[in-house]
């Protein structure tokens, strides 16, 4: 395990504990919830105390939907099928399929984030919306960033689980 290490500094030992991995999964759920409620906040605020003419419509939700879709796809892929040099499971091109699906997932996630920036620029920044209404665009950006962060945290903690299982198998 320590022979095929790439970097000088190894992972600290506590990172491999079950506790750290469970905390990572909880944190991922919390981050996703944060993103969803930030966007819902912008929608409710737009309906209830919006002084301007700019309103949250379906277009503002679309980037978030794509980010969520990407997150679902990315974290549904079985990570152990990704490495082609794994001695089993690579027979009928499972690794290749996993990579295609994973690519679609990352494309959806990145597309969602880019879409969030697009909505922010085209709907809020370029027309020069004033600040309290500008908050809706910023919240859109924050929501997509939170979903992306949640994906990263979930991915890392699930990879942690593999290391943990490996340790236990030895």
């Amino acid at each position, binding site marked *: 395990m320590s022979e095929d290490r790439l970097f000088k500094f190894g992972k600290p030992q506590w990172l491999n504990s079950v506790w750290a991995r469970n905390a990572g999964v909880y944190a991922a759920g919390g981050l*996703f919830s944060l993103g969803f409620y930030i966007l819902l906040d912008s929608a*409710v605020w737009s309906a209830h105390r919006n002084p301007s003419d700019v309103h949250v419509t379906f277009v503002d939700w679309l980037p978030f939907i794509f980010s969520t879709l990407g997150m679902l796809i990315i974290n549904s892929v079985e990570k152990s099928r990704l490495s082609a040099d794994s001695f089993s499971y690579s027979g009928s091109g499972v690794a290749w399929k996993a990579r295609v699906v994973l690519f679609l997932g990352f494309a959806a996630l990145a597309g969602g984030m880019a879409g969030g920036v697009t909505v922010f620029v085209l709907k809020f920044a370029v027309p020069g919306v004033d600040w309290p209404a500008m908050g809706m665009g910023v919240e859109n950006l924050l929501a997509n960033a939170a979903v992306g962060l949640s994906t990263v945290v979930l991915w890392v903690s699930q990879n942690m*689980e593999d290391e943990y299982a490996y340790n236990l198998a030895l």
Partner: protein
Amino acid sequence: MPTAGLKTIIALSFVLAVGFLLVILSCALWKAYYPLLVVATYVLAPVPNWICSHCANPDDFVESSGAAVLDLGRFCTGFLVVMGIALPILLAHSGIIAYPAMVMSVIGGLLIYGTIISFATFFQEEQDF
């Protein structure tokens, strides 16, 4: 596991009552009953974990789908816990409930959830991992 006796039960029920008091006051004082959703959220929060722990075998490392189901439960629980805090803030930010009501319902919700969690840890049946 610390031993839990009668005093723990009394203290926990007292905290639970204070939590409910805060949430209900935050609704009734301003006559906007949306913060009651916080109670529903925190009561529902341990449910995904409970369901998924009954669906999965965590000791199964050969086929790691069991761990995936457990992770799904943890993800949903994390979602619901943050929802309990985010919902009052959202309502207050949009002017549906007042800001003091937001503070009261957040504190009350955290007290309720803390009671549920500590009750679960104190009175968990001994199980060998």
